[in-house]
C-alpha cells in the first residue's frame, strides 16, 4: 500500500490553500474553454500557460492539468443545448444529447454527462495510482499492426450505427473514408483531393466539419418552419429520472474502462474514445432504435469515455515521458518550462510534486462536479431564449469557432459547405454517425496499415502475426456477423435486392 501512502502525502500538498485555488481556477478556465467552440483543449492550454508562469511548479502543473481535463466537461454543454460541439470529443453527444434537450431533458442530460465525466476521470486516476506499471506495459504492446486491427474493429461497429437503411449507412461510411483521405499522402507525400488548396494539405479540420454537419444543418432545418419569436424549447426537470440513472450505469462503467485504456495508448484521441463508446453502446443495446432519438446511454457513455481518456492520457506522460495526445504534448512543454522532465524518475526525484498533482486530479474532478451541477440550471435557461434570437447567436458562435481553430477563413467556408451537406443528409434520411465514425478512424487506420507495410516491406502476414491484432480482427469479424444477422431480416423486407451484395 505504498501507493496509498504516497497518495495521502499528495493530498497534503494538493489540499494546501494555494494549490486548491489553482485547481479551482484551472477547472473553471477549462470549462470555459470547453464551452467556447473552436478553441480546443490544446490551443486553450497553450494560451493559458503564460498565466502560470509566475507560480511555483506544483501550482502551475496543477492548474494546467485542471484546465486540460476541465475542457472535457465544458465541451458537452453546447453539444446538448445548441447542437454545436464545443470540442471534437463531444461531437457525438450532439446526436442524442440535443434530442434529449428538445424533449425537455436538457437538465438530465447535462447532469448525467457531468456525473459520467466525474466517474470516468476518477476511474482513470485510480488506475494511474494503482495500476500505472502494468497498464503501461499493455500500451507498449500497441504498435502499428495492433492499431490497424483496433481501427478495423471500430469501423466494423459502423454497421450498428445504421438507421433504417443499411445501404445508406454503408454509403455514408465510405463517404467518411473518402473525406478522411483528403490531404497529403502520409507515405509518398502526394496531395490527394486538395484541388490545389494549401489549406487542404493537412486534411479537413474536424471541428468545422462537425459544426456544419450538426449545428448549421439544424439551423437550416429549423428555418424551414417560420422563425416564430415565441417558440423556445421546453425546460423540464433538471434531475435525471430513476429510469435514466439506471440506463446510464452500464454505459458509464464501460465508458470509464474504454476511455482509460484508449487514453493509455499514444495516438488515440478523445474523439475516438467517445465515438467508440457510442458505437459500442448502440451495438449492445437491447433497443438500438432509441439511439438518435434521445437515448441517455448515447450521452452517458461517450461523455464518460472522453473524460476517462483525458485523465488516462496522463498515465504515459508519468510512466514513459511520452505525450499521448497533442494536448498532453502542450502540458509536457509546461513541465519542461518549469524545469521538470516528465518520466518515471519524477516519482523518485520529485515525489511531492508528482503525487500532489495526481491527488489534485481527484480534487479537480470533485470541483468540476460541484461547479457543473448547479450550473446546469443556469445553462438550461439558455433554451428559454426565443429561437429567432438564439439561432443568430449560435451562428455567430459557430463562425467564430470555425475561424478560431486555425485562424482561417477557409475553415468557415468548410463549415458552411458541410452545413448544407448536413441539411441534405437529413432531408434524404442519410445517417451521419457512420460517416463521422469513419472520418475519425479513417486516417489512423490508413496510416497504421501503411506503417505496418513499411515495417514488413509489403508482407501482409505481419497483420496476423501479433496475437493482439489477430484477436481484434476476430472480434471485428464477430461484430460484423452479429450485426449482419440482426439487420438482415429488417432490410430484406424493404429491399430484397442490393442488401446482400453490400455485405460481400
Amino acid at each position, binding site marked *: 500500500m505504498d501507493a496509498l501512502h504516497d497518495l495521502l502525502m499528495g493530498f497534503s500538498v494538493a489540499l494546501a490553500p494555494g494549490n486548491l485555488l489553482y485547481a479551482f481556477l484551472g477547472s473553471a478556465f477549462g470549462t470555459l474553454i470547453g464551452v467556447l467552440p473552436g478553441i480546443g483543449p490544446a490551443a486553450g492550454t497553450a494560451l493559458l500557460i503564460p498565466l502560470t508562469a509566475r507560480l511555483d511548479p506544483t501550482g502551475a502543473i496543477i492548474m494546467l492539468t485542471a484546465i486540460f481535463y476541465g475542457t472535457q466537461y465544458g465541451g458537452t454543454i453546447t453539444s446538448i443545448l445548441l447542437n454545436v460541439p464545443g470540442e471534437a470529443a463531444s461531437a457525438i453527444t450532439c446526436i442524442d444529447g440535443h434530442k434529449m434537450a428538445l424533449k425537455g431533458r436538457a437538465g438530465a442530460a447535462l447532469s448525467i454527462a457531468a456525473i459520467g465525466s466525474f466517474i470516468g476521470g476518477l476511474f482513470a486516476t485510480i488506475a494511474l495510482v494503482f495500476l500505472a506499471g502494468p497498464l503501461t506495459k499493455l500500451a507498449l504492446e*500497441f504498435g502499428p499492426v495492433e492499431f490497424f486491427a483496433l481501427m478495423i474493429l471500430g469501423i466494423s461497429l459502423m454497421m450498428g450505427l445504421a438507421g433504417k437503411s443499411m445501404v445508406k449507412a454503408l454509403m455514408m461510411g465510405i463517404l467518411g473514408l473518402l473525406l478522411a483521405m483528403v490531404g497529403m499522402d502520409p507515405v509518398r*507525400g502526394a496531395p490527394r483531393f486538395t484541388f490545389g488548396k494549401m489549406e487542404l494539405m493537412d486534411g479537413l479540420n474536424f471541428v468545422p466539419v462537425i459544426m456544419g454537419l450538426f449545428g448549421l444543418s439544424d439551423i437550416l432545418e429549423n428555418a424551414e418552419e417560420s422563425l416564430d419569436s415565441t417558440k423556445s424549447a421546453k425546460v423540464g426537470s433538471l434531475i435525471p429520472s430513476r429510469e435514466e440513472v439506471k440506463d446510464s450505469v452500464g454505459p458509464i462503467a464501460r465508458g470509464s474502462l474504454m476511455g482509460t485504456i484508449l487514453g493509455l495508448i499514444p*495516438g488515440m484521441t478523445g474523439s475516438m474514445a467517445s465515438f467508440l463508446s457510442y458505437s459500442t453502446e448502440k451495438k449492445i443495446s437491447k433497443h438500438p432504435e432509441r439511439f438518435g432519438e434521445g437515448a441517455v446511454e448515447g450521452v452517458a457513455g461517450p461523455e464518460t469515455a472522453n473524460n476517462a481518456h483525458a485523465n488516462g492520457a496522463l498515465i504515459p506522460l508519468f510512466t*514513459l515521458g*511520452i505525450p499521448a495526445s497533442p494536448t498532453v*504534448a502542450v502540458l509536457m512543454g509546461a513541465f519542461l518550462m518549469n524545469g521538470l522532465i516528465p518520466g*518515471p524518475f519524477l516519482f523518485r526525484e520529485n515525489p511531492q510534486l508528482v503525487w500532489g498533482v495526481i491527488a489534485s486530479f481527484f480534487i479537480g474532478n470533485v470541483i468540476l462536479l460541484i461547479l457543473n451541477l448547479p450550473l446546469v440550471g443556469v445553462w438550461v435557461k439558455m433554451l428559454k431564449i426565443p429561437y429567432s434570437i438564439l439561432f443568430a447567436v449560435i451562428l455567430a458562435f459557430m463562425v467564430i469557432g470555425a475561424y478560431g481553430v486555425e485562424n482561417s477563413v477557409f475553415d468557415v467556408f468548410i463549415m458552411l459547405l458541410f452545413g448544407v451537406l448536413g441539411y441534405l443528409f437529413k432531408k434524404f434520411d442519410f445517417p451521419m454517425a457512420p460517416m463521422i465514425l469513419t472520418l475519425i478512424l479513417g486516417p489512423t487506420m490508413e496510416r497504421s496499415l501503411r506503417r505496418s507495410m513499411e515495417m514488413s516491406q509489403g508482407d501482409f502476414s505481419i497483420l496476423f502475426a501479433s496475437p493482439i491484432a489477430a484477436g481484434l480482427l476476430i472480434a471485428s469479424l464477430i461484430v460484423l456477423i452479429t450485426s449482419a444477422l440482426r439487420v438482415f431480416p429488417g432490410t430484406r423486407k424493404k429491399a430484397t435486392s442490393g442488401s446482400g451484395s453490400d455485405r460481400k
Partner: protein
Amino acid sequence: MGILSIRKCAAILMAVCLVGVAASVGAQTFPAKNKAITLIVGFSAGGSSDAGARILAGGMEKVLGTKVEVLNKPGASGQLGYTMVAQAKPDGYTIGLASLPGVMVSIMDPDRKAAYKKDDFQPIALQVLDAGVIAVKADSPYKTIKDLLDDAKARPKKITMSTTGLQTGDHFSILQLQQLTGTQFAIVHFDGAGTAMTALLGKKINAYVGNVGDVLSQLKSGDIRVLGVMDTEESPFLPGVKTFESQGINLLGGSWRGYLAPAGTPKEIVDKLSAAMKTALETEEVKAAMDKLGLHIRYMDAKDYTKLWDSYGSMVKELIPLSKQ
C-alpha cells in the same frame, strides 16, 4: 506655363528627395515606437517551435523597445505561414519562423505547389539547432552505430527505423545516412515523436530517429541508448553521447530553426533584427528558458544563415526524389 512646369519639376524633385530621405530614415528609426513587429509561426501554439519563438519574441521586445507579436498560422506543414511571410510587405515589420529542412522541402517538392521560391526570402538569423539523434532500446544488441550499420548491410531493408513524419529532418537524415554508408533501412513514418517513441519502447521498431529534445526523458530513465548526435559538437543535454562525426560518419542534421524576412527587406533592417536577436539570445533570462526546453542556442547572422539556407537548398533538391520512393 513655363514657371508652372519648373515648379512642377521642383515639386517632383522634392518629392523624390523626401521619399529617399523617408526610406533611409525608415531604416534608421526601425523599429518605430508603437509599431509592432509580427512574427509568423506556421505551427500550432504549444509546440517546441512555437515555444522557442515566443521566448525569443519576449527577449527581442526588450532590445528593440517595441512589441513583437507571435501569430500562429498552422497548416500544410508550415506552408501557410511561409506563404504569408513571402507575400508580406518587406519593411521588417513582418518576419517568420522557418524550420530547415521543412521550409526547403515545401519549395523544392513540386507536389507541394508552393506559392514562393527560395529567393523570395531573406534569411535574418538562426536561433536553434535541435540536432538529430539515433536511438535504440537499452536492451538492443546494437551497442554502437557500427553494430547497427553492419547489421543493415548484412540484411538490407530489414532493419526498421522510424521518422517523426514524412520529409521531416529525421527522414532526410536517414536518407543521408543511407547515401553515406551504402546501407538500406526499412523507413517507417510515424506522426510525431510520441507515437514513434512508443513503438521503440514496445520493440515494434529497431531504431528511432528524432531530435535531442525528444529523447531526454527516456534517456534519463535508462530505457534507451543514444548511438550518436548529428552535430559538430556534443549536445550539452546528452553528456557522454558522441557525435557521428567523431565516429567516422559525416552526418549532420536535425531541425534548424531561424527567422526569415520577405526578400527586398532593406539590409540595414535585416542587420538590425539580426543583431537584436543576438543580443536577446545572450541574455540570461532567454538562455535559461531555452535551456529548460532542451533547445540548443546556435546563433548565426544573416550571412552565415544564408549560406546554410543555400546548402540545404541543393541537398534537399537532390534527396526529394529519394524521399518519395
